[in-house]
């Protein structure tokens, strides 16, 4: 039927496609409120206990300074901390002391960076 007008069908089809597209977009925006990190994932990702633990370990290292220094193992213990952090905790750790009581700590696990200067007795 050559005289049949098919433009209407095209318009309806296009209209339907647009409607489906709108529907899809509306759904995505709706779902975006739930997408993203939940609180638990946020807690798991932030290395609160790791940083606290590392900090107390470094301060402990400096508290035992004389004891370790007596046997000349200062660098060894420092290397222990740096190497094991890198291998097992996937974190880059760097620390040093300026004056005897001023200790600087740097920690970076790829997601969180932590820098601190501490005055320790």
């Amino acid at each position: 039927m050559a005289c049949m007008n098919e433009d209407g069908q095209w318009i309806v089809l296009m209209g339907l496609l647009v409607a489906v597209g709108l529907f899809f977009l509306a759904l995505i925006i709706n779902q975006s409120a739930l997408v993203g990190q939940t609180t638990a994932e946020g807690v798991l990702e932030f290395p609160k206990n790791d940083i606290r633990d590392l900090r107390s370990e470094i301060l402990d290292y400096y508290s035992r300074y004389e004891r370790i220094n007596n046997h000349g193992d200062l660098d060894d213990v420092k290397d222990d901390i740096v190497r094991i952090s890198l291998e097992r905790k996937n974190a880059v750790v760097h620390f040093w002391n300026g004056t005897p009581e001023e200790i600087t700590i740097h920690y970076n696990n790829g997601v969180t960076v932590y820098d601190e200067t501490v005055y320790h007795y």
Partner: protein
Amino acid sequence: MVNDSGQLYTMEGIAAGLVMLLTAYLILSTTSIYTPGDTHIPDMQLEQLGSDVLAMMDTPDTHGATSALETYVNTNNSTDFKTAFLGYCNAKAIGTDTLHMSANVTYRGDDDQIKEHLLVEPDETWTGRESAVRVTRWVQLDKQTSQMRPYGSRPRAVLVEVLLWRA
């Protein structure tokens, strides 16, 4: 000339459209179901608990004493470490919990290699498929004169890693 076949086409198109919409809706809405495991809440609770227990075991009870954790690692005391750790973990206000653990100690050997030493073996509930959580704690060991521990005698920093799971 009015032809009915056009109306049939349109209706067919609308029906197809409705089917498409329904399918799209069904597929997309199923992705929004959140199971508790997806939110990692039990993992978070277990990890916080494990970190707390290791931190408390590493706190000396009196000023100037050595912490219990350091003593266990120094003397390689697997049974006491396991009993103490599980005692803390499974304590509840009413009743007890059913957590299990295994532990190993990562140290840097004298040959500059990072090695692991198994401190506590996993018990019979460990099949390898539990969702386990790993918690760690640094321990500073002094120079050891006796040969009791397998890490070497120089002062060293070691990492105690505990795997914790619910069974």
